């Protein structure tokens, strides 16, 4: 019974997905549609709240499941992101005729997978979580199946995702071979005994890093990202660009700190270099994009680099883990919302607006332009926003761990990124709209909810302490001693 209570939030999310599908089938698509996002949000919030009445902690299911502050923090993050997705998606889905029930159910299933990653202490649970998180997202990318780009996105994402899963599971096999167990704690013992000098540990480490690097879109394993993000329906892109990335980092933190913790310090230079390459590549390529959706896709690669810098700095202690968690939370909200702002522009297919199509958005839909600007300022890292605070908190452990050059690289990259983020603001505020500018959707729910989210990002930028102290506590289990 205790075992079941420990995964109650996950169970509720599963049940919600099934209810969403069932209601849709029973009531018919037209009548059910307005209620589906509502149902989804209620289910997710119930899942989030349930541990208040039925708390659980420690190991369950014979060591397959671990509930700690780390798990709780990621549950919060994933649920918040899924709720946001459900709130901002309906406008676009209705306009483009994308089936609603499938969309929400897929988001819920993927969220379930992400949550499973956060509670894994065993390679098997972890792998199930990763697959459960990824496979629904492949479907999500291709949900607008009559659109050529959506098909390309889904296929590319699926093929490379399957490929990376294969690499990952191969790495897991090596770890199993080394330790004779799939438990992360056992693996840690075996790895400590051998050290980084032994070739099998290096092979396992390289394979796992590559596999998880694919999922998180780390350069040079990022090639699928721009096309997949660009071609997927925009609300799906918003979700894809944040939740799977956060889940991948949850996996990286757990595996790197628990199983490979003993050798992590020696491996950190690899992460530092990957971080530098990732952020620089993402930003430099984003500079030359004229399509805003594609630009945001590259920018999300750059943000992966910043987050990876925190992983490289794990030796600095809890502040590094907390910085990664805080950044994931902040990035999740601001990046999802930034993509969602693109759904105001009514364009054919999955295509995102080009810079010119955003010209004069301010005079056409002021609230949309102002919200989008606030999210772009967040992404740039200008105070007083949560995006700034995330960068501030990230630079701290990176310096503390002795990677001064990486901290300087983060600062210079942020300045570089300011150019393309602010260029969007230029087009929205400082150019007049063209005669053939696309229609702007005036959906009230969308502009209202994005306005609230924009306010929240500013509020969290001024009063981040609740989230940050939670992140500090949540990072305790992944500190490397």
């Amino acid at each position, binding site marked *: 019974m205790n075992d079941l209570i420990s995964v109650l939030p996950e169970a509720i999310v599963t049940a919600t997905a099934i209810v969403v599908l069932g209601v849709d089938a029973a009531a018919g698509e037209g009548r059910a549609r307005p209620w589906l996002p509502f149902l989804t949000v209620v289910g997710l919030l119930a899942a989030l709240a349930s541990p208040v009445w039925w708390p659980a902690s420690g190991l369950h299911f014979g060591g397959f499941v671990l509930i700690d502050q780390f798990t709780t923090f990621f549950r919060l993050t994933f649920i918040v992101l899924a709720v946001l997705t459900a709130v901002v998606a309906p406008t676009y889905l209705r306009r483009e005729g994308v089936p609603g029930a499938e969309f929400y159910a897929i988001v819920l299933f993927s969220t379930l997978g992400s949550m499973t990653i956060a509670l894994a202490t065993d390679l098997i649970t972890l792998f199930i979580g990763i697959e459960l998180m990824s496979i629904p997202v492949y479907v999500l990318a291709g949900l607008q199946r009559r659109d050529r780009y959506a098909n390309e996105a889904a296929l590319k994402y699926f093929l490379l995702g399957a490929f990376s899963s294969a690499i990952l599971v191969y790495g897991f096999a090596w770890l199993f071979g080394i330790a004779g167990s799939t438990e992360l704690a056992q693996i840690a013992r075996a790895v400590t005994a051998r050290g980084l000098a032994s070739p099998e540990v290096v092979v396992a480490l390289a394979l796992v890093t590559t596999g998880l690097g694919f999922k998180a879109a780390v350069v040079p394993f990022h090639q699928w990202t721009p096309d997949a993000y660009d071609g997927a329906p925009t609300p799906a892109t918003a979700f894809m660009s944040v939740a799977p990335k956060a889940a991948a980092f949850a996996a990286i933190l757990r595996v790197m700190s628990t199983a490979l913790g003993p050798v992590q310090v020696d491996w950190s230079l690899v992460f530092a270099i990957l971080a530098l390459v990732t952020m620089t590549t993402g930003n430099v390529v984003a500079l030359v994009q004229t399509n805003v959706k594609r630009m945001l896709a590259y920018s999300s690669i750059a943000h992966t680099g910043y987050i990876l810098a925190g992983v490289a700095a794990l030796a600095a202690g809890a502040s590094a883990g907390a910085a990664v968690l805080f950044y994931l939370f902040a990035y999740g909200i601001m990046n999802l919302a930034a993509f969602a702002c693109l759904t105001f522009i009514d364009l054919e297919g999955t295509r995102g607006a080009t810079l010119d199509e955003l010209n004069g958005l301010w005079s056409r839909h002021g609230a949309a332009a102002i919200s989008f600007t606030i999210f772009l300022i967040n992404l740039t890292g200008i105070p007083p926003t949560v995006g700034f605070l995330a960068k501030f908190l990230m630079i701290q452990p990176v310096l503390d761990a002795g990677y001064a050059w990486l901290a300087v690289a983060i600062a210079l990259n942020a300045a570089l990124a300011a150019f393309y983020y*602010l260029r969007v603001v230029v087009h929205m505020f400082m150019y007049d709209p063209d005669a053939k500018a696309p229609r702007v959707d005036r959906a009230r729910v969308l502009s209202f909810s994005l306005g609230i989210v924009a306010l929240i990002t500013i509020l969290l930028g001024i009063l981040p302490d609740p989230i940050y102290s939670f992140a500090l506590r949540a990072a305790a289990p992944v500190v490397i001693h």
Partner: protein
Amino acid sequence: MIFAQPVIDHALTLLVVIPLVGLIPLILFRGDDRAAKQVAIVTTFVELLVSLVMLGQFKVGEAGFQMTESVTWLPSLGIRYEVGVDGISVLLVVLTTLLTFLSVLYSSGGAIKQRLTEFMAVFLLLEVGMVGVFVALDLFLFYIFFELMLVPMYLIIGIWGGTRRIYATLKFVLFTLAGSLLMLVAIVAVYLQSGDAGSRTLSFTQLVSSPGRFTPEFQTWAFLAFALAFAIKLPMVPFHTWLPDAHVEAPTAGSIILAGILLKAGGYGLIRFALPLFPSGAQQWLPLIILLSVVAIIYGAAVSTVQKDLKKLVAYSSVAHMGFVTLGLFVLNVQGGVGAILQMLNHGVVTGALFLFVGIQYERTHRRLIADLGGLANKWPLYTTFFGIFVLASLGLPGLNGFVGEFLVLVGTFAYKGVPISGLVWGPIAAVGVILAAIYLLWMFQRVMYGTVRDAYKDLPDLSAVEVACAVPLVALTIILGVFPQPFIRIIEPSLERMLALASAASVAIK
């Protein structure tokens, strides 16, 4: 006074909050230009009054921070909301509130033709950042306000600016941001060096309480990062290239604030944070900064001389005048320092006024090229009188404020015993800058105001009541600061001595 005690106790917080409160009615009445004007004028006027009350409460002669407030803000990081003013910052706060009020007043007189509500909202947001920069005593808080000034000014230039506004505003933002992000890394480094985990702080008073906290090597790099951010803001040669573009394209009110306040944030940052925190680091870079200051004075003046565009001329003259500020600060003596602070105030008043008058003129003639103008003195007696006073003040005529600051800076420079080149070399070179200023300003005044007036300008009106109302306080300050600088020096001097003591004592301790 009726609102005495609570207002005085929290005067600085009030100053930060009042413009934010003003935003609420602006949002409620959006689209109604008349209401927007009234709200903005009332808000900035109340702000000005509160800052004057604060100045009235300021105890002259004390070196330390006054009216301080300190509240735990981010307990898990040990970061505090800490504000206070001393002799260096108190006058800059009043200058900020005064110039903002005058800019808003001027802009509501018809200078801003479109989207007035939004303009006023952005202006109030800008004021929060500017006041905050001068009162923040925690580096984290300071950085937030420092960056908060960025986005509003970006929008002001980019939306309400001239034809090349987009190029100008992006250049402004990217220059400033590149510098300040490197400073952010240095701030985080300072935070990490400030103690062990759990006792770390970014509070200025705590950071300077134990000199020798930072190793000389650390100071060298940290000072460089801080100085770079402030040098770009100031701007120092060779980081000044954004300034002429930004000034030329900015609307008049934007130019006034940019020259009057934003540049001062750079000079203020140097004397408040960079020098006292990293004294031995400052020693490392001092010869270079003095060289660049003198270069700025001569180069700025020389380039001003050949400008064809009025706004560009005033912009380049700012580069020269701000050269005096850095020169005065980095000769590290009291005369130079006091002169530098006075020069910041004077430059704020006078250059703010010059931009105001160039703007007034442009609004009537729609010409900024000096060659297109001429003979305006015949038609505009009031304008000519005011403009003439500001031009004379800017070139450093004794009896007006520009003279006092530059004179003290030169005195300080002559007393500077620098290695390898002493102040006896730098002083005369800098003095040449004063002469050049007379040349380019008087020549400009002659070409614009005298001669025969063009037919097209014959029927243009002289100053309106609102414009006179904007000019009078500035003229008054120009004369008061020029004739009675002593009260101001008495406010500045003790605090400046304290900062200089921090900047030199610690470096002695390390040696």
